[in-house]
């Protein structure tokens, strides 16, 4: 009994210590960065047009990529959550593929398919759509790396809606598509909003794939990297800190969404 209590106490101490170290490991660099450059970064937003523009570009491209991801990913997520079909496991694996490949590799792959020499790139060019070295490239890179997060979370959101709601709607005269639109979609909407916030957050923090496709114009992450390489750590801090503050926006939005649900 005595030793049992002792073991429990030791386990509690070890768990507490490990948790604290882990949290500190994550929080300290971020807090340090914001502490060192947050105020300067916010102040620079007024004077530093390049920083300001890169933040706007980042937010706009992430919004564009998220919109495309929601449009294309929602039906896919629904199918993965609700239907059985041949090759479903394969489709799910393809969707998850960007999560496991290094992001510069993803950038190279996209460049190969969408670059000026590729048939797709040429076709897009004749339509007047520039991908490489343009905001289009940023959106493509963001979409590629962050869409799996949307599809995964949206699939979960659909799966959480009891399929029997849809069954009831079907027997009340709805076609499969109509039941999905009138019942499942509204019931999953909160989860879908959360999924798109997660996707947006992932998109604004992308660097590796973007830097291959579109170095200029620079998104915030590329700008921070560029300033670090060109001018050193101190010059990079404000841009980096501002990007952290931007990333806090979706985090807070998610929190608010959860709170309003409860």
């Amino acid at each position, binding site marked *: 009994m005595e030793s049992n209590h002792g073991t429990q106490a030791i386990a509690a101490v070890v768990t507490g210590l490990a948790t604290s170290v882990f949290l500190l490991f994550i929080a300290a660099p971020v807090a340090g960065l914001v502490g060192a450059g947050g105020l300067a970064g916010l102040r620079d937003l007024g004077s530093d047009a390049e920083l300001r523009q890169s933040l706007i570009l980042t937010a706009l491209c992430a919004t564009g990529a998220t919109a495309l991801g929601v449009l294309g990913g929602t039906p896919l997520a629904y199918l993965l959550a609700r239907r059985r079909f041949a090759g479903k496991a394969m489709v799910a694996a393809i969707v998850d593929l960007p999560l496991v490949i290094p992001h510069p590799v993803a950038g190279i792959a996209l460049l190969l398919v969408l670059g000026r020499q590729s048939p797709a790139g040429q076709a897009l060019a004749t339509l007047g759509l520039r991908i490489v070295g343009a905001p289009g490239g940023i959106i493509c890179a963001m979409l590629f790396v962050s869409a799996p997060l949307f599809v995964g979370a949206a699939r979960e959101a659909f799966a959480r809606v009891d399929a029997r709601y849809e*069954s009831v*709607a*079907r*027997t*009340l005269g709805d076609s499969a598509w109509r039941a999905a639109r009138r019942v499942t979609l509204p*019931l999953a909407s909160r989860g879908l909003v959360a999924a798109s916030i997660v996707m947006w957050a992932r998109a604004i923090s992308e660097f590796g794939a973007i830097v291959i496709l579109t170095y200029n114009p620079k998104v915030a992450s590329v700008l921070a990297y560029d300033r670090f390489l060109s001018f050193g750590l101190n010059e990079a801090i404000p841009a980096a800190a501002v990007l952290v503050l931007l990333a806090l926006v979706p985090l807070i939005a998610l929190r608010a969404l959860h709170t309003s649900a409860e």
Partner: protein
Amino acid sequence: MSPASRAAPAARSVPRPDEAAAAAAVGSPMLSVVGLSARQGSFTLRNVSFDVQHGAYGILIGPAGAGKTTLLEAIAGVIPVREGAVVIGGRVMTHVAPDRRGLSLVYQHAYLFPHLTVRRNIEYGAATPEAAREMSDRFGLEPLAGRDVRTLSGGERQLVALARGLTRRPGLLLLDEPFAALDQRTRNAARRVLRVIHQEQGFTVLHVSHDFSEVGLLGDVAVLLDRGRVLQAGPPDVMFREPASAYVADFLGAENVFAGRAAPIRALGPDWSAARGDAVEEHAVAFTTGAITLYALGDAVPGPAHAVIRAEEVALSLEPGSSSVRNQFRGTVMEFAPAGAITRVTVDVQGTPVVAAVTSRSVQELGLEVGRPVVVAFKAMAVHIC
């Protein structure tokens, strides 16, 4: 309710339950389930067959986990059928989309759409808003019309679900324990409303219940399902009197189910004629259980069997009567279970407990008490051998 209603027993004779066979079998039933197999998760329905006639009220009963809801979902078309056929209104519907089957499905847990108000829920499948309003009126739901469905009580939710299912004017109404969440008073009222609407509109019902009293109250046809199979199907009174097995009898609440041996008696003495009444059976059966032998009418295969006697058929007296009652035994009172006007008295007859349901008044009049000697009596006709 339609007197013509009946159910075909679980057809052992359906050799290859394919759709051609089903189409050929199309006659007057509104719903024919032919050799249906379906799977839901790890649960499997196997070779389920029965009919419900046009306008009849069918009750699907069985213990929890029997597959009742799965069967309703297969009929509704919201889960796929692996084998067999579902024929509704003479059309093979096995692979027809649920919205084209002309039916409504009302689940036990209502599944009201939480993002819609009570009114919008009821209107969901309605042809016109007026039809929805009328139905909501009939179930007394108009005062709740503007409410968020998440604020309703369990009983209110169930009534809204029922009204929603009916506004579509379905040809076939599938109900999954629709009264389970209702208190006794509301339940009786809801049953009354449903019965009236059923008679007015003449649709066909398949109603899932685990409560056999609902079969007697509502059903024209009863289907007993257990572990994915149909154990018995037919008019409720027949199922009640002549259960297909001891298990069925037990499930249907028969208090006296005895295991023993049956031995047919071929040559009946003249004294049997009185006991037979107007029954046409030619044979009698002697059934031995424990230390007693009792008599039943009809045919039975010699050997191990079960005897079923409903407690209502057992009479108690202080002295043996001289009547035509074949089965009379002396015993002692073991136990009383009063339930309002009726008391169930368990009598020890030479080691075999026999339960009699008698009025509480006659318990008093006979001065029954535990340990008191009594005579139990029941007619040979009341004994069902299975």
